[in-house]
């Protein structure tokens, strides 16, 4: 279990002659068996928070505990499965060599290298030098490295950064397979859709403050939908009084509401002769909450 209690972090800035407040009074608990997401705009303090959990930084105030211990002693004794945001591995190492080194350093059995290579689809790149890998393949190597040892704490920082849509989907399956009653998983991402799909709770951080935590049930409840009609329907605004036409798209409209009211409105529309060609969530509760936190209206 990872516990952050009133954690603040200031950086001294010699240029600005003062302190830069990266995190302010953040309290968060990531239980065993749970997948917690961390969302926030650039510069919100996500990477600082992760560095604090790994013990790469010390908090200015408050404390971080992993299973009751300070982060560094915990990591030195147990290790953490960690995928950094921008994975850095010496350019001359090969994929195979890098994984063998990390397995050796982390005390992971060599058989796990094969499993990690298979899971991340790196077989065809196995003997290539790291410097020749594309961004997406490099990211998969980072993920393979994080999966090598069987850790109880996993931290994935922007895990789908640079991945193509196919691997982004596979990533979700990989994370779901990592879920275990004794494991805490923490995922930081800009990709709200990804967090919504895999995380039980999502912490939204803005300007160094933990603003709110959206739980999975809330996160999956969409509030803004797009309605596409097969043909124009005069009864549309009777069924959906607040419908807004999507600019440049004929017969497409944005509608808001909870599931009950939307179902009633759809039934009314169909009764009025409307032919529904498509109806899907355009913005989830998590996206709405995120916009509310960063103070941005939807265009």
């Amino acid at each position: 279990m990872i516990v952050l209690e009133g954690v603040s972090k200031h950086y001294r800035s010699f240029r600005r002659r003062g302190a830069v407040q990266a995190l302010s009074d953040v309290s968060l608990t990531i239980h065993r068996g749970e997948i917690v997401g961390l969302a926030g705009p650039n510069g919100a303090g996500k990477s600082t928070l992760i560095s604090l959990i790994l013990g790469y930084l010390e908090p200015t105030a408050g404390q971080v505990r992993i299973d009751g211990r300070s982060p560094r002693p915990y990591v030195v004794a147990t290790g953490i499965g960690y995928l950094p945001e921008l994975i850095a591995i010496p350019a001359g190492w090969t994929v195979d060599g890098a994984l063998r080194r990390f397995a050796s350093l982390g005390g992971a059995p060599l058989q796990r290298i094969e499993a990690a290579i298979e899971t991340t689809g790196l077989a065809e790149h196995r003997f290539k030098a790291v410097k020749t890998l594309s961004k997406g393949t490099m990211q998969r190597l980072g993920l393979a490295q994080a999966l090598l040892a069987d850790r109880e704490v996993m931290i994935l920082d922007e895990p789908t950064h640079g991945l193509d849509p196919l691997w982004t989907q596979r990533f979700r399956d990989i994370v779901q397979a990592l879920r275990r009653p004794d494991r805490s998983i923490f995922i930081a991402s800009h990709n709200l859709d990804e967090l919504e799909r895999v995380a039980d709770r999502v912490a939204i951080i803005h300007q160094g403050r933990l603003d709110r935590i959206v739980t999975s049930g809330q996160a999956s409840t969409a509030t803004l939908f797009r309605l596409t009609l097969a043909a124009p329907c005069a009864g549309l605004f009777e069924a959906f009084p607040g419908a807004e036409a999507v600019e440049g798209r004929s017969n497409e409209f944005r509608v808001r509401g909870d599931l009950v009211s939307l179902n009633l409105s759809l039934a009314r529309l169909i009764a009025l002769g409307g032919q529904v060609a498509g109806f899907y969530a355009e913005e989830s509760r998590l996206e709405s909450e995120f916009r509310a936190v960063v103070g941005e209206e939807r265009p």
Partner: protein
Amino acid sequence: MRIRMPLRYASWMLRDALRSVGVIELIVIGLMTFLLINLRSAADGKGPSGVTLLAQLVTGFDWVVVMVATGGIVATDLTRGYFRTLFSEPVSPPLYYLQRWLVGAVAVGLSVPIAGIGVLVADGSFVFSGAVLVRLLLLYLLLGGLTFMLSTLLRRDWLFALLIFIVQTLIQSLSASGLGVGPTVRAIVRALPPFHLVEIGPGVPTYPGSAALFHVLVYGAVLVGIAVTVLAYRPLGTGGRE
């Protein structure tokens, strides 16, 4: 909590050290041997031989291999971000770098048998000198220890270490040759690592005296101790520079 040296990783460290230091040793000693053979044939076979030749071969590039083995030893990992994946593994950073530094000493020590092969090519017989090896390893302790310590604090550790090495060596040789060196400069040089005590020098190499050995061992141990202490107490995420 058990904190151990990452011995299981030592073979990878040795491999890295041999790929950098070992290759340089082979190239430099190969070139020097080739040059020496040509110089000798031009001078009708006259010139140093045996252990003296071995000492000359090693002296020619000893500081270079020490710098290659230790330059950026910590700073490169911190500035390029390699530390993030390395130390999410159950490994203690001070012990990891201490082990890497010790493995570097092994690679540097290989200069002596490689130079012995150079002598074999030039003279027809292989020689080995314990005195040369001891002096080389003591240089590693001082110059390599200084670079190791600076690497925990600065990006261009090798540059500052080299500057200190050059300044100390220059002033020490000026002082030894009887040229006027003021008391302040002499005091500064006394505070710098005593590189002159481990110099191999011309002629048949000898082991350093016990006083010199004690001075060098204590000085080197303090340098390495500071490096390990900094690594143990400063968070890596600030590059040790917060």
